[in-house]
């Protein structure tokens, strides 16, 4: 009750308080207005001098302010330079990591038998790094990371090396630090690109894991080694080499490794599975959980795939058949077919268990779509078996087909080669040109050399347009010749199958929107499978690698999509490596530390010298001006 009374009393006095407060607020204003000097109007004769003085005073003020700032900066610079020297001995030995690539792909979230996950180990390491200084974290999937990393959810896709590494490069730019710490279970890749490695002269022994080995794989995959992956120049060395360095010492060097690359993802060859001796098992870096704080520098000198890894997977629903359209270079698919895992997977999830898998090379389709008589240049590695498309090509384009041997590891192979075959090919093209055929189709599967071919062929052959077939998207965009207008609408596909077609693992092209095709990224693919196959509870997830794939299978799930996101990336090529090198990515031994305090000291010393010179000049100007002002007599 007393509170109520108090409130009422205050309420009654409120207007009075308001008035008093307003008057109190107005007092300073009134004082200001009263004591304010009134501006006097004053007629002046020497206005020319007055205006000159006003302008000059402005300049002088600026000059003096500049001088003040310079003088203030001098002791700061001097202190910083001295501090750098002082702390040089203290801080130079510590390694500072500022940019961390965090593997947030699904593999890192797989729960191990003992209950821990790789992502947890990653976050532990990350927390420790953050105690040492600010850390910029970049998601390996390329997606933005949440502020609270412990809320991180797995991304249903593989690593986006291109985006992630470029983001990391942006963060390292200007810091003088070229290393990026990778926190990963190193499982992000998928199946090895056998053809690529063979073309690069690397001996591969690959045995796809049997289904009964899956548990073992899972058991050993959950680790969180720290690794620094830096691209080298595979083409100069011609071999694949991985060194493990532990505490600055070479721990081991392995030359027989898997380059996990059948998705065509940029830089995916950096993802290494470690082979243990002659064992056919796939094992991860042998790091027990207790060693996660050990810094490992993995120097990867990758090879590359001269063959394209892009592939298309089509599923025909109504006939219960799956048609794979592949370039046949993905040994992963070969392996998958060999071991029938896909059949197994499909059958296990199929209502009737009657699905079959066909493999169709896209070359077949394109050759079928080609107009007869069009000159064709073929550059394909020898790993491609003789297939129907090559015989078709020979038949339809007899006399106009130039088959180039596969490229070797020398990226300059093309020039001498083309020059050698030039007369013969010119004759063929010339003959065609008489019939007013406007373009030539270049069948190739390596985007790097293709760029060279594209650059060189016009010089050699005149105005003949060159396109390649493996990159379907630009092919459709380019629409070379009338023949490809129909190709852009995929009539061949429709002719082969009168059913809806699911295109996966390839970026969606707008011109396909009129077709009975549906884009199928991982999520959509899951939905399709749920809707069309009726196996909702059994489709576990799409994943980025064989480990996940097998894991999914083991969990009574089905995985059909290897890595849609990764497959959209440009395959690793010389140009990619060069691009990364030009962006500052270098081998580990070149520079692995941030600038030392000593370096910083030198920068400050230089700045100090500049500032002293500036101070001297400015002071002289001001001094001259002041001395001028000294005498006032006229």
């Amino acid at each position, binding site marked *: 009750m007393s509170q109520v009374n108090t409130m009422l009393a205050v309420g009654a006095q409120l207007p009075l308080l308001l008035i008093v407060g307003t008057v109190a607020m107005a007092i300073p204003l009134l004082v200001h207005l009263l004591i304010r000097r009134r501006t006097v109007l004053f007629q002046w004769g020497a*206005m020319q001098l007055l205006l000159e003085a006003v302008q000059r005073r402005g300049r002088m003020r600026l000059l003096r302010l500049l001088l003040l700032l310079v003088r203030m900066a001098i002791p700061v610079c001097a202190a910083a330079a001295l501090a750098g020297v002082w702390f040089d001995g203290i801080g130079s030995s510590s390694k500072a990591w500022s940019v961390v690539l965090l593997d947030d792909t699904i593999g890192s979230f797989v729960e191990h038998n003992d209950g821990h996950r790789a992502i947890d180990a990653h976050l532990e390491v990350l927390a420790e790094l953050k105690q040492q200084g600010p850390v910029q974290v970049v998601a390996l999937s390329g997606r933005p990371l949440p502020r609270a990393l412990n809320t991180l959810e797995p991304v249903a896709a593989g690593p986006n090396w291109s985006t992630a590494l470029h983001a990391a490069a942006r963060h390292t730019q200007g810091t003088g630090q070229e290393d990026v710490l990778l926190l990963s279970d190193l499982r992000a890749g998928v199946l090895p690109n056998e053809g690529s490695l063979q073309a690069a002269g690397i001996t591969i022994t690959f045995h796809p894991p049997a289904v009964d080995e899956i548990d073992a794989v899972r058991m050993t995959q959950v680790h969180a080694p720290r690794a620094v992956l830096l691209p080298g120049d595979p083409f100069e060395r011609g071999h694949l080499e991985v060194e493990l360095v532990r505490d600055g010492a070479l721990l081991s060097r392995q030359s027989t490794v898997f380059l996990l690359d059948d998705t065509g993802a940029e830089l995916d060859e950096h993802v290494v599975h470690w082979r243990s001796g002659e064992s056919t098992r796939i094992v991860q870096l042998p790091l027990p959980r207790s060693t996660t704080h050990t810094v490992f520098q993995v120097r990867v000198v990758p090879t590359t795939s001269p063959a394209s890894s892009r592939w298309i997977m089509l599923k025909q629903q109504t006939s219960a058949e799956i048609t794979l359209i592949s370039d046949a270079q993905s040994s992963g698919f070969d392996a998958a077919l060999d071991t029938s895992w896909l059949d197994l997977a499909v059958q296990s999830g199929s209502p009737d268990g009657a699905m079959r898998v066909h493999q169709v090379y896209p070359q077949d389709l394109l050759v079928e779509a080609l107009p007869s008589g069009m000159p064709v240049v073929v550059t394909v590695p020898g790993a491609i078996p003789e297939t129907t498309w090559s015989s078709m090509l020979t038949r339809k384009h007899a006399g106009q087909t130039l088959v180039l041997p596969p490229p070797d590891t020398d990226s300059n192979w093309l020039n001498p080669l083309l020059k050698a075959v030039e007369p013969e090919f010119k004759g063929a093209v010339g003959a065609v040109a008489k019939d007013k055929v406007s373009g030539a189709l270049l069948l190739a599967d390596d985007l790097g050399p293709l760029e060279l071919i594209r650059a060189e062929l016009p010089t050699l052959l005149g105005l003949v347009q060159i396109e390649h077939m493996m990159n379907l998207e630009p092919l459709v965009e380019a629409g070379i010749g009338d023949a490809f207008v129909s190709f852009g609408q995929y009539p061949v596909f429709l002719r082969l199958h009168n059913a809806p077609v699911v295109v996966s693992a390839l970026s969606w092209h707008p011109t396909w929107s009129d077709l009975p095709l549906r884009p199928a990224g991982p999520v959509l693919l899951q939905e399709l499978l749920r809707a069309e196959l009726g196996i909702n509870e059994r489709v576990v997830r799409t994943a980025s690698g064989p480990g996940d794939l097998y894991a999914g299978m083991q969990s009574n799930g089905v995985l059909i999509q290897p890595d849609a996101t990764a497959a959209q990336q440009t395959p690793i090529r010389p140009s990619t490596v060069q691009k990364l090198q030009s962006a500052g990515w270098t081998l580990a031994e070149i520079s692995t530390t941030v600038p030392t305090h000593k370096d910083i000291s030198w920068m400050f010393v230089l700045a100090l010298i500049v500032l002293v010179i500036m101070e001297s000049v400015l002071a002289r100007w001001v001094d001259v001006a002041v001395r001028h002002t000294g005498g006032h007599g*006229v």
Partner: protein
Amino acid sequence: MTPDQAALRAAFGGLELRARRIVEGLRSGGHVSPRAGGAVEFDRHRAYQPGDELRHLDWKVFARSDRLVLKHARMETTLDVLFLLDDSGSMAFGSNGVWGTKFELATAVAHALAWLAVDAGDRVAGWQCVDVQSTSTTPRGGLVGLSQMTESCGGSPSEGDAVDLPAISRMLVSAVQRPSLIIVLSDLFATQDELERFFGRLRHAGHDVLLLQTIDGAEQRFEVPEEARMIDLEGLNSVQIQARSLRDTYLEALERHQNFIGDICRRLQIEHLVLDPHQSPIPELRRLLHRRAAGLSAARTVG
């Protein structure tokens, strides 16, 4: 009062008091004139040579020494003294000096010097600068000259107007063919380029130039209210200032300007005198006129 003095008084009108004070002040130290000298003066003897005019023979020397020598005389022509009076807006500035505004001081000095010149037998003429094109003045001696001077230089400053120095120099060079003494009375608030061209052109035309620069003491010491909006007397310019913060820079600009004028005068051999309405011009003028008289005598001796 002599008739001449009465005529002068009538001619000077309102200027009389100031001009007369100046004239009297100057005369108290002896006879001075902007240009000392008479009409014809003996110069030297030289031996007779056949063909010389006999009327120049010095018969007194012939009577005393039986030598035929010619009396070589130097004929001094009448000098034209031209007054150029700056009547631009800035000349209206004054700060309660005993001699009034800059324009009033300049006018008094001009008339005093004109009086002295006429008194010495020279001819005078005067122009006010702003309206110089419309004024046509021929140098005249005596009361006529003084009367004409009063007419042409007896006005007031032209409010808001500035002086077109190039036009004035063009007019003077074309209108005044005979080498004359040009007395410029101005505060000389013009650009350095204009000033250099102006005086250079006058000197190049063969005129003797005497520069009497009038600057008010307030202008010299920057005596202005602490906070003021300064309004240009010659135009629409105005600027808000705080005198304390601007004083040093202004004085520096003034010193630079004066140094420049001093340089021009030294280079072009122009007499330069700074007059302040707060101070009597008489001592400075007297020294100036004595200096000029001494200079003329020396020149005559050398000649």
